[in-house]
């Protein structure tokens, strides 16, 4: 890894207050894992919104929400958003997007969450667009791996994650990828985890609210902590 030395570390602590996330190395890929409805997607979007406020570019690979609604969401999360700092790869394979909402964002449509080549081309174009708009660093979110796993097998998804992580590493980006821990067997989750540098585990807390812990990025796994 020689490409990332002069770039600055990513500080994710304003989204998740863990020391292990205060200096995330450019090129790191993080898996956000938790049961359904535990706020994984929101967390991934918050990490990107935090980056946008700090001048990082943002790329969203979405299998659920349309490009238009992703752009709208980031406009509301980051009121002074410059659209050209945002790239969206919409993998739903549906037309009917509200094109007005997309503005100057770099949007690419892909025929299905199983079209890995198409997703790769979309990511490449988004990275290029962000680079041309002056972004040297950025954050990518893929929401969600669970949907991709319904279109293609775990071997292919694992390899895809590995190859994409390598690409993000040469771009100096960080990546966050969500997975529904209740939707897959243990072996599948273990396989997918291995493609990542670290993991954020999310769960519902006993007394209400949610809690998280961080594994694998710096030192030992952290304790569960309210978020």
């Amino acid at each position: 890894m020689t490409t990332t030395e002069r770039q600055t570390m990513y500080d994710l602590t304003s989204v998740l207050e863990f020391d292990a996330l205060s200096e995330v190395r450019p090129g790191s890929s993080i898996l956000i894992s938790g049961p359904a409805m535990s706020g994984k997607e929101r967390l991934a979007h918050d990490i990107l919104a935090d980056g946008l406020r700090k001048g990082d570019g943002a790329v969203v690979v979405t299998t659920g929400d349309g490009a238009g609604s992703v752009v709208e969401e980031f406009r509301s999360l980051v009121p002074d958003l410059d659209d050209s700092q945002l790239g969206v790869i919409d993998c739903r394979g549906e037309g009917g997007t509200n094109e007005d909402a997309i503005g100057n964002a770099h949007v690419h449509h892909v025929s299905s969450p199983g079209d890995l080549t198409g997703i790769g081309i979309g990511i490449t174009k988004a990275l290029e667009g962000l680079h041309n708009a002056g972004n040297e660093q950025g954050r990518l979110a893929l929401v969600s791996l669970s949907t991709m796993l319904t279109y293609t097998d775990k071997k292919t998804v694992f390899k895809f994650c590995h190859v994409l992580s390598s690409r993000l590493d040469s771009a100096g980006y960080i990546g966050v990828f969500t997975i529904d821990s209740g939707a897959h067997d243990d072996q599948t989750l273990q396989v997918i985890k291995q493609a990542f540098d670290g993991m954020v585990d999310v769960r519902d807390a006993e007394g209400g609210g949610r809690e998280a812990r961080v594994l694998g990025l710096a030192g030992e796994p952290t304790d569960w902590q309210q978020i």
Partner: protein
Amino acid sequence: MSDSDLPVVLIVEDEPDVAETYKLWLQQEYEVRMAQNGDEGLEQLDADVDVVLLDRMMPGLSGDEVLERIRERDLGCRVAMVTAVEPDFDILEMGFDAYLSKPIRSEQLHETVDNLLDRSEYDSLLQEYYALVEKQATLEATKSSAELAESDQYDELTERVAEMRDDLSETLGGIEDDSDFIATLRGLSDDDDN
């Protein structure tokens, strides 16, 4: 298997002088096959061929049509398009693994062929890596952490997974550029069809 252990390069080019020049440059390091048009190219093509240099503008079958038939045959070889004009990004979308614009210099040709062979190496390392990760995951999913701590097999697997991960990041410098990235992903989708 081919007669020699050298990687096999197939040159599909309708201008004999140009084809001869490529052959001269490559024949020290590779076994070179030649074809003067698309139909001959498809005849010369078999599982031994590692890299195809395909001229895009030829009488008879065009380079694009030849590419399509190569992909249909699922041979797993890498195809570089040779073209007179600088192509845009769509070349990757069309399914070529690389392109060379004429006139081609010797180093350029070597670089491209080497890079395509590296990609094949990367693909097989990635496949091997996955097989190890899957074994490791099966142990993790079926044994308790106490059992894992005592298992030599698990220890050894963990070590090999780490080694393999380093090997992968050294091949192709990880995934350094866009065409490496897209071509590698295309390889994954092709596997899926098998």
